[in-house]
């Protein structure tokens, strides 16, 4: 059976992204980074949702579902109440790209305590704790991200 199958497979047309036009194959890319974070930065995820659990000295909801469209936070839902956060407060939340930039900025400032874990597959920062200075309170960055859904 194997001897027959192999020649048949070789007769099939090449795989393409456009099943209706096999004459113009699309260039596909695949990437698997040595660094998990590379997996996020090398794949242009601009539309996604994620669940955020954060600690901060702030009055805005700490456990939320964040929706990002075209790289911008467009909707934040308070998991406790099920209600959307007021639009003027959306700026209190960030997309993954901005969170990565904040991590880089914080690392540059030589924080007193630093713990960052990236999701090994998608590469987003799934656990972040940064204390810039032990001598200053309420300056910490402390959050978990989970349930990232690429749209």
């Amino acid at each position: 059976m194997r001897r027959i199958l192999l020649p048949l497979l070789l007769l099939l047309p090449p795989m393409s992204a456009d099943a209706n036009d096999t004459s113009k194959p699309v260039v596909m890319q695949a990437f698997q980074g040595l660094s998990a974070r590379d997996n996020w930065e090398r794949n242009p995820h601009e539309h996604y949702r994620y669940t955020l659990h954060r600690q901060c000295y702030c009055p805005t909801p700490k456990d939320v579902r964040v929706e990002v469209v075209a790289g911008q936070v467009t909707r934040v839902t308070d998991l406790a109440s099920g209600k959307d956060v007021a639009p003027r407060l959306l700026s209190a939340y960030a997309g993954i790209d901005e969170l990565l930039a904040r991590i880089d900025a914080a690392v540059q400032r030589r924080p007193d305590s630093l713990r960052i874990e990236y999701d090994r597959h998608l590469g987003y920062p799934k656990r972040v704790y940064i204390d810039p200075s032990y001598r200053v309170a309420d300056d910490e960055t402390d959050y978990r991200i989970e349930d990232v859904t690429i749209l």
Partner: protein
Amino acid sequence: MSDLKDLRSAKRLQPAFSIVLLACAGTLPGVALAFNISFDYRFDSNNFFDAARKSILDSAAAFFESRITDTLDAIEPGPSGFGFDNTFTAKITNPGTGLAQDVVDLTVPADTLIVFVGGRSLGGSTLGQGGPGAYSASGTQTFIDTVSTRGEPGVDPNGITDTDFAPWGGAITFDNDASTNWYFDNDTTTDEAFTGADFYSVALHEIGHVLGIGTADSWDNKIVNGQFTGAASVAANGGNTIATTADGGHWAANTQSVIAGTNTAQEAAMDPTITLGTRKRFTELDVAGLQDIGWEIQADSAQ
């Protein structure tokens, strides 16, 4: 200390005489009137503070000034008398820029903490941040000891075995971006309905951090397996140790107590939670935390 007792006695004298005596005492080196928190606005480069906001900040400081009785040595940089200068440089996070800031040859009067304050965008929706300052100093051993302990024997200059806390002061930054809708109350003695984030509550909280809650070595030294074990706090919490946040910076979220000087239940001011439209005054547990850090506390007075 005797000077302070003399002054307190003076307050009970005839008004005209006591005014003269107090005025004289205020001009004499080494004679202090009371524990004082002095705000310095030189780094409020974004002009967050106006007269009304300064007044609320003073109201928050007044609570601590009414309860803390420590006497602290003055820090007075200058000629040592031995052919070299005593130097003192206060180090803070600049409230206006967020960058490291040195204040060279800062003079700190006796019994006084100097707190640099200002506003800038803190990102996210964080309302404020604060804590004690750092420093560098050179000069005589006596001067170095004064800078590091301010005359309080329980302060370990190496920061290991501290049972007391006596900083020169520190810095507080308040958020000034659109994410925060502040409520500025021109009379903090009354409670009324409001919306927004209560500036007075946040000021109390951040001053609490400057005074060492969540930031002092003597605070850290009383945390065992995530539980604060200070005797005064345990007593204020019905004999039970108090859970802290994972980083030890606050009481755990939703820690309950009563407003200081009252029997009114309230969530502790020094837990990490604040809700829009809600005032959080300092509670008995918060005050006990100060006492466990090493501050000398006098009897209750309602806020």
